[in-house]
């Protein structure tokens, strides 16, 4: 009996490595600490009422961002572990199995649990405010999306301590990721954790599509929307149409692994290449899902701090539309070398190159927004400016990869790794840091410190170049990705050393940013006006942080850069007199999303271990929550006029 428990524990918990024990211990300690603090300060009720059950898009946005920052930390630690292992040839800091798990979790976490949720967080905060709406179209669904993402991410991270992590790479190519060559629960964690959060993403896409299409303030026609809102509209389209393919791909591989089907197996006619095909059908649009929103952020920030309207607004919009259409017909460029016929490769080479054209249009329009502007070098602006040259390098190397015969030489080498870090970091990460600094006062009512912000920027940005520019050469020297070690004498060592130095530098930059957040929480400059940057769009028209109902009066819009126009009118003394307040109709908090997602977690965990006694009750819980929700009719409340007056008076906005 004791023996069997012991052997079960040995199999259940990941063992055999001091690093894992350390992680186990720190996770346990952190959990106990959180529970203790919450209990001591009697914060449980507050946590439940203010956060866990909230349907307020601004709070959901903040929760997304906190979760994404934590995941960035985890992904960053993974990255540093990889860099440590690769610094010198023949190191044994990590063994092969461990290294393989680390790059898999690094890639998956960075893309699915950092980039996407960070963007979802920023769009939750900014989009309803920018279009002058009181909330998103489906607040309940919004909360559900967040909790699905959260529990999906938790499930994925659990693999580190229970059962073992996936090790087939974030692209999980079959047949290696199949049950036969990859037994154990690691790959199941990947499939099911990502699936759960993917369902949440799909719902977010639908939600924001409807929000933006149907809930804009009166007068805000599509072509008067701020560009960030435009970018989210188009991103949502890509999310809605790319994620179903991923849902299917993940489901098919899960069915292969759990129920013995043969979609991607070697045996019984399965087609491993079909997995690659389906994965990239989602995977390529995915990179634009994490890129277009930051294009939107840069458009806002560059226009704000150049004190000009964006150059070529209509073209900026249409180029994003073009990217969204093209993004669905280029996926094969990720497997040019899987023996396709020449016409197939030629088609996808050309369709991929075409994306350079709308992207280039955007780059030049940003440059010409700066032209004849009055440029102000704030921290968000620095991130936006650094993006332009750094991302261009990532983009043009992408075009080089798009040339199929040349890609035969780059594919799966560090040239490719350098390309995608140049786009993902100089694009997405710079963008989310930019948005974080820009909207921080709107989220919390105080600014992040500029000096520390700039230090973090310079250190991170320069280290990024130190880390990833030499990497292109490493690829041309023949070093392939996903190697846990390499022999001496190939000339690879110096570059690897430099890269590790750069990676540590990025870590330092990140630490300074984290310190800035903590420091500013205590000493940060308060934002009393709600408009700390002299902004141009409607989110700056309301107080910081915005009241629960966002706007006491729904603003009326007549031009682009609506808030700038309002300020202009006010300067000219044309501001119209305020109308009386009316009660505001708001959705009520609900615990169903978090409970339902927790059931999903239970069901998912059961599936990971193929414990159907656990999965089935979990699934029943999910369905019960759905039914319960379907019978809830009273899910709204009114904010009375007195409350509105009190809130508005507190921010000095009472008419």
């Amino acid at each position, binding site marked *: 009996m004791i023996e069997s428990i012991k052997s079960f524990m040995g199999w259940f918990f990941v063992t055999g490595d001091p690093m894992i024990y350390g992680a186990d211990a720190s996770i346990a300690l952190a959990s106990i600490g959180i529970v203790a603090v919450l209990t001591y300060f009697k914060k449980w009720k507050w946590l439940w009422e203010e956060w866990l059950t909230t349907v307020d898009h601004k709070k959901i946005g903040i929760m997304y961002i906190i979760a994404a920052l934590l995941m960035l930390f985890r992904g960053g630690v993974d990255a540093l572990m990889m860099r440590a292992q690769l610094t010198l040839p023949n190191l044994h800091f990590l063994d092969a199995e461990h290294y393989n798990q680390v790059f898999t979790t690094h890639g998956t976490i960075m893309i699915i649990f950092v980039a996407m949720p960070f963007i979802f967080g920023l769009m939750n905060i900014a989009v309803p405010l920018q279009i002058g709406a009181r909330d998103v*179209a*489906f607040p309940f669904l919004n909360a559900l999306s967040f909790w699905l993402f959260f529990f999906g991410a938790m499930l994925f991270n659990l693999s580190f301590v229970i059962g073992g992590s996936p090790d087939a790479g974030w692209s999980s190519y079959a047949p290696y990721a199949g049950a036969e060559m990859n037994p154990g629960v690691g790959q199941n964690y990947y499939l099911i954790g990502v699936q759960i959060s993917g369902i949440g993403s*799909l719902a977010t*896409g*639908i*939600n924001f*599509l*409807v929000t933006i*299409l*149907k*809930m804009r303030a009166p007068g805000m026609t599509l072509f008067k929307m701020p560009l960030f809102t435009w970018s989210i509209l188009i991103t949502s389209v890509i999310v*809605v*149409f*790319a*994620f*179903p*393919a991923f*849902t*299917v*791909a993940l*489901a*098919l591989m899960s*069915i*292969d692994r759990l*129920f*013995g*089907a*043969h*979609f991607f*197996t070697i*045996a*019984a*006619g*399965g*087609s491993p290449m*079909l997995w690659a095909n*389906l994965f990239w*059908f989602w995977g390529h649009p995915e990179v634009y899902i994490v890129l277009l929103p930051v294009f939107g952020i840069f458009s806002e920030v560059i226009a704000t701090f150049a004190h000009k309207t964006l150059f070529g607004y209509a073209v900026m919009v249409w180029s994003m539309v073009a990217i969204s259409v093209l993004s669905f017909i280029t996926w094969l460029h990720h497997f040019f070398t899987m023996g396709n016929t020449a016409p197939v490769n030629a088609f996808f080479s050309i369709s991929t190159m075409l994306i350079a054209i709308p992207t280039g249009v955007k780059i030049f329009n940003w440059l010409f927004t700066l032209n004849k502007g009055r440029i102000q070098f704030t921290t968000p602006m620095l991130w936006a400016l650094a993006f332009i040259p750094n991302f261009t390098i990532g983009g043009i190397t992408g075009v080089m990869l798009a040339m199929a015969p040349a890609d035969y030489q780059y594919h799966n080498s560090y040239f490719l790794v350098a390309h995608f870090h140049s786009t993902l970091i100089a694009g997405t990460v710079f963008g989310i840091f930019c948005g974080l600094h820009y909207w921080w006062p709107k989220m919390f009512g105080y600014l992040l410190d500029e000096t520390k912000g700039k230090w973090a920027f310079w250190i991170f940005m320069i280290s990024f170049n130190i880390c990833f520019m030499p990497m292109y050469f490493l690829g041309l020297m023949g070093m392939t990705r996903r190697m846990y070690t390499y022999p001496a004498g190939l000339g690879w060592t110096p570059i690897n050393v430099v890269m590790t130095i750069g990676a540590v530098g990025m870590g330092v930059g990140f630490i300074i940013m984290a310190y800035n957040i903590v420091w500013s929480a205590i000493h940060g400059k308060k934002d009393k006006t709600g408009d700390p940057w002299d902004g141009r769009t409607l989110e700056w028209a309301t107080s910081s942080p915005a009241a629960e109902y966002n706007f006491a009066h729904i603003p009326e819009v007549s031009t682009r850069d609506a808030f700038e126009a309002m300020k202009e009118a006010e300067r000219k003394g044309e501001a119209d007199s305020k109308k009386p307040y009316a009660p505001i109709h708001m959705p009520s908090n609900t615990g169903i999303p978090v409970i339902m997602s927790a059931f999903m977690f239970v069901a998912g965990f059961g599936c990971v271990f193929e414990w159907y006694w656990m999965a089935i009750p979990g699934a029943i819980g999910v369905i019960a929550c759905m*039914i319960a929700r*379907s*019978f809830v*009719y009273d899910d709204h409340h009114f904010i009375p006029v007195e409350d509105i007056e009190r809130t508005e008076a507190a921010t000095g906005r009472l008419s």
Partner: protein
Amino acid sequence: MTDATLSLHEKDQSKLPLEYRTEEGDLRIVGFWIFLAAELVLFGTLFGSYLVLQSHTAGGPGPHDLFEIGPVMAETIVLLISSFTCGLSTLELRRHNKKGLIGWLIVTILLGLVFLGLEINEFYTYAVHEGAPISRSAFLSGFFVLLGTHGAHVTLGIVWIAGILLQLGKRGITTVTARKAFMAGLYWHFLDVVWIFIFTAVYLTGLVI
């Protein structure tokens, strides 16, 4: 479409059909359409996978050996008729005729149940009598998952409509129940569209090639 097409500039809310009359109803219907568009891609992916794997029978039974046109035609006709009765239910909804609405919805889900029964019988025959379960070959994996996904959608539709029937019985035709009934109708027609492609791409194609 004369009676149903709504003017974009319809100011007079009370002229709108019930399900569009509240802002929430309007939002949800658009959202549901987008969801259906996403489902198109979901099924597209399954179709693509199935068609690629169709010939990968691993020496086991192929489409020719398994498919029989009789039962398939029965399933098809039942589902087509259910789509029709579902269309009638929406019509009754527009007439605000609660009895008619409930009646046609009941007919619809009964037909849906018949369809499911036929499909389960077909699956059972293949998996048990013909020795061709999902794990037999890539072709069968593709077949069972594509049809199973459709079947699961039909099941969900039946449960959903049953729930709406309860609410209709309790509350009558309100803006909320009207919206739900209307959306369930869209869903049902959509499943019919998917079946048309299953009929063509799986059964007919399987018999032709």
